């Protein structure tokens, strides 16, 4: 699809970007679009910090001996890689950037329901982020991002309480964002924007928000208990004080398993929008895709102990959690089949966002299917806590969530910035990311089945693991380049990119019916929705007068 540029220079119109200048106009903004950009800057910062840790981890594992860094440093690297990536990048990534930017636009609202709460959530995020940075710069943590007790409460001498405070605080930004989205989606929809006309991106964010507000408080409580045991020696988790270390794991995974769905559901929403647009089709089985998001959010809360099959829980508990884990796999499979079916008899374009969506489909499928291996009790005993798990969750959380995030950033970049990104470079980057990703993480499945445990700084006793680690490190280098490229050309395009028209993809959805970039209150006049979601048939009808596509206006 060629990206149309409109005549004149729409960037010169008054919009949310050029309405005001100055630091204050950004730091005190309540405009959801500006807050989305504040989030974009902050999470990109943390993404590259987390990525830098990942690079050091991979370099260390290039050789079996612990030679680049000592074991202590290595343990801190994978801990902080996990904490930064999970809590400061993946969880806020799509919701806080694309969700924040797009939800009001997609439902025809002027802003989120609570604009000041939205700004507050960013400040909370930044407060947590600064504490995390301080923690990392003054010594860091070596517990693993899962900070299992009693290691975290009684044995480590690193800054676990400070890291806990950072995560505790940043959790509130996640809760506030979720709360804001739920209220907005319920209360702020434009006339005619019924639930069945909502873009599936909105359904995905609605499901995500439910998890955020129900799950996050549990990890907050868990952190408080860990801090209480560590500082006040209250016996909660440490058996020496009369506690139960498995209780910690139950509480931790009660949040941290659903948290995986906080990361993947929004990405599924993005991919749904992209596939519909670049196949020029209404999504196949709209209501099944919508309700599968809700089903994932609900069932996602019932499977946490599948992280604990060998932890010492009873065989009967293990049996139930294995069964439920297979139940949650069904709605994910339903989504994949519906996306595939949407391509059937479509009119498919290969622009960069679609390439990312294809990448997502492939990587999420592999990530999901390897989840079936881990949910099978007999196999989990062998592969849990090995590189098999590491590969599996990176396929979901990087292959799935980050591919979707990048696809979404490309798809909506013209709307966000008012500029077009360079398409050729973007396709190249998508290809590099896909190849680099598979080269990095596929060998780790093999390593895992061979038995290489995760979190090993040194594998000199088992040199047979080296060859696959070399592949993985090589892949990580390629992947790193793939991630740097978009950052460079997005920055470049902000100044030199061609001005974008209001709807360069000729896409369905209210966000494309306002200007690029949108004005501060999104729509000049409140839109009234009279069409179903994904009305690509009408958009592509050749004879139709384009003027009929204009937004009907209320009043």
């Amino acid at each position, binding site marked *: 699809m060629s990206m149309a540029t409109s005549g004149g220079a729409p960037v010169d119109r008054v919009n949310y970007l050029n309405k005001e200048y100055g630091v204050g106009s950004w730091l005190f903004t309540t405009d959801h679009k500006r807050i989305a950009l504040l989030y974009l800057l902050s999470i990109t910062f943390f993404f590259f910090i987390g990525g830098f840790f990942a690079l050091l981890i991979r370099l260390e594992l290039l050789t079996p001996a*612990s030679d680049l860094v000592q*074991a202590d440093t290595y*343990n801190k690297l994978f801990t902080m890689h996990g904490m930064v990536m999970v809590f400061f990048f993946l969880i806020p990534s799509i919701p806080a950037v694309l969700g924040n930017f797009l939800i009001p636009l997609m439902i025809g609202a002027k802003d989120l329901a609570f604009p000041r709460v939205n700004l507050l959530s960013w400040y909370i995020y930044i407060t947590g982020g600064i504490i995390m940075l301080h923690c990392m710069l003054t010594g860091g943590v*070596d*517990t693993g991002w*899962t900070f*299992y007790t*009693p*290691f975290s409460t009684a*044995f480590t001498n690193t800054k676990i309480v400070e890291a806990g405070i950072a995560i505790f605080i940043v959790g509130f930004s996640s809760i506030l964002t979720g709360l804001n989205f739920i209220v907005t989606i319920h209360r702020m929809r434009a006339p005619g924007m019924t639930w069945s006309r909502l873009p599936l991106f909105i359904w995905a964010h609605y499901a995500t928000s439910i998890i955020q507000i129900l799950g996050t408080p549990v990890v907050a409580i868990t952190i408080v208990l860990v801090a209480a045991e560590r500082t006040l020696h209250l016996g909660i988790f440490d*058996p020496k004080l009369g506690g139960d*270390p*498995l209780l910690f794991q139950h509480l931790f995974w009660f949040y941290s398993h659903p948290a995986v769905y906080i990361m993947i559901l929004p990405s599924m929403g993005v991919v749904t929008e992209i596939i519909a647009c670049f*196949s020029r*089709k*209404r999504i196949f*089985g*709209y*209501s099944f895709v919508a309700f599968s998001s809700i089903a994932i959010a609900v069932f996602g809360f019932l499977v946490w102990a599948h992280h604990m*099959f*060998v932890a010492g829980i009873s*065989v009967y508990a293990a*049996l139930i959690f*294995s069964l439920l884990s*297979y139940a949650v796999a*069904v709605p994910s*499979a339903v989504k994949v*089949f519906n996306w*595939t079916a949407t391509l*059937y008899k*479509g*009119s*498919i*374009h290969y622009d960069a966002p679609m390439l990312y969506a*294809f990448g997502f*489909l492939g990587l999420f*499928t592999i990530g999901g*299917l*390897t989840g*079936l*291996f881990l949910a*099978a*009790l*007999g196999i*989990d*005993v*062998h592969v849990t*806590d*090995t590189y098999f798990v590491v590969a599996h969750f990176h396929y979901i959380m990087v292959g799935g969530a980050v591919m979707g995030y990048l696809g979404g950033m490309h798809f909506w970049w013209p709307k966000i910035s008012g500029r077009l990104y360079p398409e050729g470079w973007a396709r190249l980057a998508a290809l590099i990311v896909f190849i680099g990703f598979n080269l990095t993480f596929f060998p780790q499945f093999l390593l895992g*089945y061979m*038995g290489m*445990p995760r979190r*090993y*700084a*040194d*594998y000199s006793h*088992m040199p047979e693991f080296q060859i696959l680690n070399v592949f993985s490190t090589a892949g990580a280098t390629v992947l790193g380049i793939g991630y740097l490229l978009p950052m460079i050309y997005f920055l470049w395009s902000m100044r030199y990119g061609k001005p974008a028209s209001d709807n360069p993809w000729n896409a369905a959805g209210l966000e494309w019916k306002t200007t690029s970039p949108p004005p501060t209150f999104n729509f000049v006049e409140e839109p009234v929705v009279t069409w179903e979601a994904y009305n*690509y*048939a009408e958009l*592509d009808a050749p004879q139709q007068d384009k003027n009929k596509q204009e937004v009907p206006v209320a009043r």
Partner: protein
Amino acid sequence: MLDNFPLWPDRASTMAGNVDALYIFLLIVSGLMTLLIFVAVVYFAARYRYRRGVPAVQIEGSIPLELTWSIIPLFVFMAIFLWGAVVFFRGRTPPRDSTEVYVVAKQWMWKLEHAEGQREINELHVPVGRDVKLIMTSQDVIHSFYVPAFRMKQDVLPGRYTMAWFRATKPGTYHLFCAEYCGTQHSGMVGSIVVMDPAQYEAWMSGGSTGPLAATGEKIFSQLGCATCHRTDTQGRGPNLQGVFGKPVQLEDGRTVTADENYVRECILDPGAKRVKGFQPIMPTFQGLVSEEQVNALVAYVKSLSNSSAAGANSNAAVALPAAPDKATAKGNQVQ
């Protein structure tokens, strides 16, 4: 066939074949599913690529199709679940009369003690073809006992016992890993399992033992004065421990528990928690007074008091025998 396949772990236990079979089945199922989706996506993407003047055909959806691709995967998933559960149950249920090895994990070392008394560090010698049950605990943080060649892994927790078992099938030396992150030298907490032919194993066993673990336990039992209350008759202030192990025990609070390794351990370290019905809470805790190894020896001793198999039957017979003449005498007296 798989034994010489590169990138495939050794198979040296009865579990390995079961796990591999399920794994291969899953590789085939997920391979087919991946292929199905991959072929469909590539075919559709090529066949229905954008052509000027050929619009997309709008399709609302199809309930029969949605049901098909929900229900068929569900059945496939249930089959995998059942198979996985069966393999798991087999791996979690130690056969009766296994050889027992007590494992104490600590940062960053494995301490192993055979029931026969041999002690080892970071190395475990076992014979081919015998069931070995591991009774494991940790002195500090959570560790995990992982032998890839046996497809066996079990977390090792402080404050309680966790169990695992295996039967080795192939002589050789195999990796033992700690699989649960446990601090700085986590990756140094590795060792090996040496699987030997039975004859070699007997030779190895004959050297360096300090006597059976139960005998060590008996010594500790008398040193700590346990025998003053836990007498072998019904007159003791504590329960008689003869024949107790493995049996249900009535507690003061009305519950009934099975006297397994964890219960005996808890009674030594936290005697008030599950007090036997009819006894006063007078036993002091031995938390901090005995090492993990000594607790293991005590558990092994208590266990030896009720070996239900051959030895137990003999001792019962031995107890019963002197009684018989008494009865006979009594009867005789009556007759007389």
